Each structure stands twice: as structure tokens, then as C-alpha cells.
């Protein structure tokens, strides 16, 4: 039940100011979220705390996060 609400909370935080991120994050949630480890889920929460333009740059390959866990997540988001 706690997991279920946590997923809902994360789902809402995937609502962004930029449409591109809404679309990519929605797809990521549907395809990958259920299979993430606890550690990856924690990293995903960190990723969602980033400002939209920075997150979009990562997704567009304009720049790369230094944190390797975030890097791995971005890889899954854009695959």
C-alpha cells in the first residue's frame, strides 16, 4: 500500500512544465518504474527534483549528469 502511494506521488511529480518531459517521464513510468530497485527509485526522486531545462538537456544529450545513477536513469528514459 505504501509502495502504491509512493508510485502515485512520483507519478504526479512527473508532471512538468515542459511537454517533452511529461511525455518521456510518462513513458518511463509505464515501461520501467515497476522494475526499478529501491536504490534506482530513490535516484529517480532525485532526478525529478532537477529543474526542467536541466532535465531536458540530459534527455536531449546536450549534457550529462555527473551522478552515475542519474546517468543510468536518463539512459533508460530516452531509450
Amino acid at each position: 500500500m505504501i509502495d502504491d502511494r509512493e508510485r502515485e506521488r512520483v507519478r504526479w511529480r512527473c508532471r512538468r512544465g515542459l511537454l517533452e518531459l511529461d511525455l518521456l517521464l510518462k513513458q518511463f513510468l509505464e515501461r520501467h518504474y515497476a522494475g526499478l530497485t529501491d536504490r534506482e527509485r530513490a535516484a529517480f526522486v532525485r532526478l525529478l527534483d532537477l529543474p526542467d531545462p536541466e532535465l531536458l538537456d540530459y534527455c536531449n544529450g546536450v549534457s550529462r549528469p555527473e551522478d552515475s545513477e542519474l546517468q543510468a536513469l536518463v539512459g533508460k528514459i530516452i531509450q
Partner: protein
Amino acid sequence: MTPPIRRFDAIVVGAGGAGLRAALQLSEAGLKTAVVSKVFPTRSHTVAAQGGIGAALGNMGEDHWLWHMYDTVKGSDYLGDQDAIEFLCRTAPEVVIELEHYGLPFDRNDNGTVYQRPFGGHSANFGEKPVQRSCCAADRTGHAMLHTLYQRNVWAKTQFFTEWMALDLIRDPSGQVLGVIALEMETGEVSILHSRATIFATGGAGRIYASSTNAFINTGDGLGMAARAGIPLEDMEFWQFHPTGVAGAGVLITEGVRGEGGFLLNKNGERFMERYAPNMKDLASRDVVARAMATEIKEGRGCGEHGDYVLLKLDHLGEERIEKRLPGIREIAKKFANVDPVRDPIPVVPTAHYQMGGIPTNYHGEVVAPKGSNPEAPVPGFYAAGECACASVHGANRLGTNSLTDLVVFGREAANSVIEFLQENPGHKDLPGDAADRTLARLARLDGQKNGERVADVAAELRRTMQAHCGVFRFPDLLAAGVQKIKRVAERVARTEIKDKSKVFNTARVEALELDNLIEVATASMVSAAARQESRGAHDRSDFPKRDDVNWLKHTLYFKEQYRLEYKPVHLKPLSVEPFEPKARTY
């Protein structure tokens, strides 16, 4: 049962550029101010504004607010209120300099002044030549604005209710607005936010269209709340579209693709632009291309299961040229259309971008509605600014870079009006006993619904209906059928059911409540569009191809009750200068 009550001097609903600018003004004036936002403030859709903020600073050469005003009036196709437009353009330089002082990192010239970029539609000397008027912070002006204003609000002790959704407006029997009913997502609890004044800055509602550039949060919550509270919506037939967005996603494909030699195909593989524009073909102007695409789709030559898009072919350009000349397009197509344009065409469709209409206000940000013989009587205690409001500075079509200008000019002005109102109206007025009843009944209906329909299904039908019947180019038969169809969708919205009944972070409930708002905006847009028998600005009709100033130089007012329409005059008289008389619009 009465929900818990929290009291504030002022409540701002929405934390984009307009809401944050308004809240800052209120908090700095020492008022106890609350901002209610569905998402964290810096994730508002203002972040998507890249073009900059228009203001006649004259940093790059001679410029004048009157020239900016001329461009805005002309851009509005003469439907904009000229008093409000004068106010916008005269105030713009001041609010930009204020933002600079707040620390917004604008790009700069060598002499230290704010750098200004050229932007389409902006001219010097009444259309004589282009002028550089757009102030930018790289391509992140919207983000920089949000960040700057949010920080400053934190210092000013604005109280943020983040991940709260306002559900309904509270009005007393005299019609005065006394705050909102709001839902805290974390707990699912409903509260009354009781205020002496309320500002809506809830943004646009582009999500009424199947293809929209708007973020998912843009569900027109403020417009829905206003409509349910008996307040009219103004000029909702005017929606700005972009000709080529990825079908089903809404992400834009730059017009540069056609410039490089890409062209459009219908389901028969025909290069249809050759029929509509034999000389210019796919390089014809934006509105000609958008009309042609809409006509192909209407006449059954669209592609896909629903026949609701066309194809943009560019594989003939070759991989090397696509990579070199159209950077990013291949990635966008792969990510959002699941096609590699080096091999396959991209499904595209005209895509909604910006809502010119909204909650009617005067140029002081006061919400106005007809009362007796006055078509514009202020609604006491109620204010609106930004895309949710209709001042009306954009009229029938918005000029690029004026959206950010609108946010800060009218965000600040609405707050100044509140400050003045509160000086004259001390204390909180009593809440009506039934303040929350209607909202609680709506929530109870949703929770108790049996054998209802899925929110996602009804929302999809709403969006398809708007896209097919009230899109970029409008046909009388489709509009008439669209009015009937959207009324049937409204009946289905009233019967939605959610499976998840939990209180804590129930996003299904939030999405059902958003649909309640979307349907108000959609219905207002469809009904208003079907009634306006002319083409003006973004409202483009196949059966009335010309602007008709004799009969239609007037604002539409849509009332939810019985889908009623009224009209009110355009303010053709500016505040201090001579009017700009309606003329044919050529660029």
C-alpha cells in the same frame, strides 16, 4: 460537514510567471499571501517560454512603446482592447527593468544594457522595418523568470501550498469572491481558503486539444472554476496553432524542415500542397499550410486509424543533410513519433499552442462581468492575470514575446488592484454557510459513481472532438456537429468513475477533477467558435473567409448556464493616444 478554514489577506491560484509576480507584490506590501499550485512553482508551464519578453527598451536602436502597441493591436487583428494594449506596452519597459533588478540574468550588450533579439511581428515606426525588442536569458527566459520570482517570494514570506489543487471559487450571495475550496493532494483533505481577495493565474488550457504543445498541467482549472461560479469566459474561440506538431504528442517540428525541402503527403501519398499553393507549395505561409492540412483531414485524406494526421516526408534529403541542417529533428521524431525520418515520414498535425481568450478582466486585472446595463462591472474580490485572463491584449492573435510581458505587467497590476481594494475593504466578509457544499457534492458524486466511464476515455474523446471540430481551420458542418458532440461529452464527464478511492495522493481523482475543468473550456471554445461568423486572427472559417468589422468587431462572452452567449464592445479607444483604426492586415 464544514471543511477546515484557513484565512489569508490574499490568495493567488497558480505559480507561473503571473502568479509569482502577483504574490511578490502582495507579500512585499505586507499582506498575508498564499499561493496554491498543483506542482512545484518552478515547474509551471511558463518554463516553456523561450522567445523572450517583449518591451520597447530601445537598447538596440530606436524603439518606442507606441510602435510596440501598433504591432500588438495589428497582431490582435484589431480585437484587442486598445486601452489594455497601451497599458501593456507602456508598462513593459518598467517591469523588465524591475526583473533585471530582481536578478533575472538577461543577456547583455557590451555596454551592459539588456540585449534584445529580433522576433517576428515586431516593427519600428508602425510596420516600416523590423526591430529588436525581445529581452532574453539565453533560451531559458521563462525558467529564469520563474526562478528569480520564486526566490524573491520565499524571501518575502509568501506561503506556498504546493501540490494543492483549487477546486471551486467561493462567492457570497452578493457575488463577491471570498476565496477557494482546495484539495491537498498529500492527504486528500479539502480546505476552505478564506481570503479578502483572490487572484487567478492558472494558465492556459491547451490540453483540450488532442495535439497541443502545452504541458499536461494546462487543464484550464481557473477557467473551469470561474465558469462554474457563473462568471463568463471571453473570446474562447481564439486559439493559436502551429502547423506541424508530432501527431499524438504535440512536440513541434520546426518549419525549417519544409524550408530544407521536406514536404507533406496525404494518405494517398499525394503531395497535396501542390494543389493549394502551386507556386510556393510546402513553403506557403503558415496559415495556408495549416488550412490545407485541415482540409485534407476533413475530406478523408488524413492518415492513420482515425484519419487525423498527414505525413511530413524528409527521407529524400538524406541522412547527412538531415543531421547537419536539421539538428534535433531526427531525435524528436524517434522519441515522440517512433519513426526515423531518415527512412519514414513523420506524422504531423496542426497543434494548439496558446489560448487568447479567458476570464474577462479590465486592464487593472479586475475580473469583470455584465451587471445590469454595464457589460464590465468588476466582480468584487476577484482578479485574474496571465494566460487564464483576457484583458484583452492578445485579441484574436497573440504577438510573439507578448505572453511573458502579459504575465508580469498584469500579474503586478492585479496585485496593485488587490492592495487598493483591501485598503478600502478591511476584514474578512463572512463565508456563506454552504460555501463548500457544491464542491463536496461533486467529490461525493465522483467517489460514489457506479458503472461510470474511465476518465482517460472521456478525456480522449473530448480532445479528439476539439481537434476534429474546432481546430486550426473551421468548417460550418463540423462546428455545428461539434457543438452537439461536445455537449454529449459533457454528459459523460458528469458520469466518470475512478477505481482508486484512496485519499492519499490519488492522482486519478485529480485527473477526474481536471476533466471537470477541461470540459468547461472545451464547450466554451466550441460554442463561441460556432457562433462567430467571420475569420479573424486565429479563428479561421471556411464559410466566412473575411474579417467582418461591421458585425463582429466585438468580444464574445460565454456563460456556462444554457451555453448562453453575449457580446460586448471592443475598447477601441486607448488611454492617451489616438486609436489604431482597423485595417487589412498584411506583413
